[in-house]
């Protein structure tokens, strides 16, 4: 294996490992849930991504066959991680946030999604949908 490739792979693994460590440390360090949500994002993006790209490179150069497993794994993680975070944040808000005192107005036709099913002027999106389908 050429040294330069070896270096790149090593760098990717080290960077990935570092971000994974930072992410895990953040989980310990940050006490409140909303700040805490930021920690695993480091691990799931650069951390896992670095390791996966390193793996892809290694098998390509060393073993001579190109695999897309790693890309698929990245894709799945990139798709699912934000949604998980989104849902956790929503649950937290439902339990701990009062929409009237803690939140600013949404300045939209409807309120904040987690708390307000229908827009302020009694607008119901389902009617719109039915019109669309018809």
């Amino acid at each position: 294996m050429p040294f330069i490739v070896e270096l790149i792979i090593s760098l990717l693994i080290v960077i990935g490992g570092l971000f994974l460590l930072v992410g895990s440390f953040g989980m310990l360090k940050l006490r409140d849930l909303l700040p805490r949500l930021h920690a695993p994002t480091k691990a799931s993006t650069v951390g896992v991504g670095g390791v996966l790209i390193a793996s892809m490179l290694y098998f390509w150069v060393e073993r001579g066959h190109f695999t897309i497993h790693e890309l698929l794994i990245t894709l799945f993680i990139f798709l699912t991680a934000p949604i998980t975070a989104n849902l956790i944040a929503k649950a937290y808000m439902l339990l701990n946030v009062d929409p009237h005192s803690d939140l600013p107005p949404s300045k939209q036709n409807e309120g904040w999604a987690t708390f307000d099913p229908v827009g302020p002027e009694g607008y119901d999106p389902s009617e719109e949908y039915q019109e669309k389908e018809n």
Partner: protein
Amino acid sequence: MSLTLIVLLPFIGAVLPAIMIRAGRNACATATGSITLLALILLMAKAPAVISGEVFQVSYSWLPELGLNVTFFLDGLGLLFATLILGIGLLIIIYARFYLSKDDPMGRFYAFLLLFQGAMVGIVLSDNILLLLVFWELTSLSSFLLIGYWKHLPEGRQGARMALAVTGAGGLAMIAGMLILGDIVGSYDLTVILQNADLIQASPMYVPALVLILLGCFTKSAQFPFHFWLPHAMAAPTPVSAYLHSATMVKAGIFLMARMWPVLSGTPEWFYIVATAGLVTMVLGAWIAIFKHDLKGLLAYSTVSHLGLITMLLGFGTPIAAVAGVFHIINHATFKAALFMTAGIIDHETGTRDIRRLGGLLNLMPIAGTIGIISAASMAGIIPLNGFLSKEMMLEEAWHTMWLDQGWVVPLLATVGAIFSVAYSFRFIFHVWMGKPRDENLPHHPHDPPFGMWGPPALLTVLVVLIGLFPAVIAGPLVAATSSAVIGGELPEYHLALWHGLTPALGMSVIAIVVGALLLMRHGALISATANLSRPDAKAMFDCAIAKLVALSRVISDNLHNGSLQRYLSVMIVASVAIGVSGFYAEPDHTAGTRELLDVSPAAAIGWVLLVVTSIAAVVMHHNRLLSLLLVGVIGLIVSLGFIYLSAPDLALTQISVEVVTVILMLLALNILPKETPKESLPGRKLRDGVVSIAAGLGIGGAIWAIMTRDLPNSISAYHLANSKIEGGGTNVVNVILVDFRGFDTFGEIIVLGIAALSIFALIETVTQGEAAKRLANWVVSNRRSADRHPMMMVVATRVMLPLSLMVGVYIFLRGHNEPGGGFIAGLVVSVALVMQYMASGFGWTQNRMKVNYHGMIGLGVIAAAITGASAWVAGLPFLTSGFVHVHLPIVGEFELASAMGFDLGVFLTVVGAVMLALAKLSQVERMAEHIDVNLDPMDHDPSVRIATPEKEA
């Protein structure tokens, strides 16, 4: 071959009426009739040879290891009964076409009738007693359907249930008796059993076998004290009554007694049980029949009485009595079927069956009247009809029979029975047909029915007369062939004739007719004299007994099965620990395994620590239901890591997907449970549970240690590893084991899975009604609910991921035979892909867009697996033998196509169907508890709509 066809035709043909009813009632009846006619023609083709003494046999092996083979044989006795069943069956089919009203589902009626007919023919032609038992139970089941045909009538349902309970219970006793019999002889073949009379009668097990078999016969043939079900079965439509109670169902018991006559009869036990039961039944049935005002009730009890008569003749144990019994079987079938049909005509034309409202019908319905009067006269035993002949023979035999060394008992009681018989027969004649109409306001104006209704009984009545006049010519050969089959040896000296000279039997007959007629003249006085007698109500007693039994079983099951899962689990674990410990101490010395131990890798150590920590955490925090579910999920994931570490990727994949699916389903269920489990365990119980679980854990750990440190030389794994590619055509041994080596197990498992899913459906379906539904309706949602139940991000992402996940599922499925994967895992992956859609946009919304019938999917899966398995038969190989071919496709390259893939597809469909069905029902309950309707939009806040709105306002 044609013998098998005779039995199978009604079964195969039972599909026809259900289909043909779409073409109309005539087509339906014609199709049904032609099936029976075809079977009858096949039978008649063999009749001359059978009458001349030939016996046809045919045999296929079914389960030879159990002694259960499909063997049929046709001798005189079988011929007689098969002719009655098919012949009268044909007449009944014609009759029923005109009897059933337009509102009755005729296709179903004929389908049931043919099923019943097939079962009856099966009984009388079976050579194997185990096969006979199968058909015997089939008659109980199909007669249940027939008797309860008018399912809107409570009497019909109750009568059917009673008949099923009584005859079914008798059938169970008979199974035991037959097994004993087979055990004595060493063969379950009737032809062999019939050769071993001495062996059987000398055996100490003779009496138990006899009693058990007779229990079956007596219940089926409505002998005292089991006679009570028959009159209640009269709630059935008249064609059913005519069929079941003249020629078929109740004659099955008689048939079996006749069939077993050569080996079981001739002993004192046989005589006292059978002859006494018959005698009592004959007298009792006839006595009750006199007082029945319902036409069919009268005929029902008269049937009971006549069955008693035949039973008594068989019970005498002498060849000549057996001949008389056989002859009476023929005669009774002809006149009783005609009488039942006549009763049906009366019911149909006048709208009532109450004798007290009828009278003078002969003038209004001359044809039906003539038929009814002639058959009833035969039932009374009036010269020169066929009933007279066999009754004379019965009285003659009774005259010679000693009962407990008393010569007068049997003749006296037989005469009394004959007197009653004459009385109720004359009642049928005089109170129904003669005299003046007693009730002018009958529901209908009576007149003769169409030919289709009077033709069949008329034909039977012609037979009644012809047999009476020329017995030796018409019935002689059949009686001779049948009797020699029953007796199993030389026929005794007898001749069928009207006049035997001035015999004692003739005197008894005359007495019977005279006294019977006198009795009828004083009928009114008789009724008022006996009105205050207490009569045991069989139905009330039966209901009471059933209620007691139900209460008893409830006490037993409530005490054993009290709903405490902890108790079941502890019983199960303690039992397995006990088995393990006893096994451990049964072996005298224990040595450690010889395999070298591996070093603990850091990865394994971390996994182990995680497992221990989460397990302890689960024990500590189990009161919080959500937490304990998550912890169990984590444990599952670590276990699947363990599988990967131990090179079991298939197991790991399965474990992960199962974990995902169960956690999601359990989360749905948790939502409507309290958040915390109550603290119910006292310290003592905690200690007990702790001890039990530690013992079980140590035991399992020790067992695994012992196995993993040893080389197992004769392990089956070696065979599987060696043959997976050669025999199963796949390199993934786990999958080849599942779909090929142990394919039958898997087949059973997917059926169980399907049943489990259907049980979830059934259980939750009841929750949505009644008490539970009320509680759900009053459910108070404790937490604040999100206004955004279907968040946009989740919805969009799952849509994007759906094709990807489905592709993963297909990939795993296709490669399953050679690489880790397979139908089960693929099914779970696809389920997860679908479950995600349901989670994102709600079940109702998604279901409205994906109209898949999950019940059907489960069934389809099982059928696909079964068809794949059965296709091996085409090649003459055993069930589920898999075949494979190498296929070469351009681009894709060469690959193997194994028939196991079809089987795997079945597994796949069943898994998806089962998961989705469970999800569907759980989310239905959820919707009820949360009081929410099905959403109309895929997501609650749709940015595209929001942006669109201001433009519209502008």
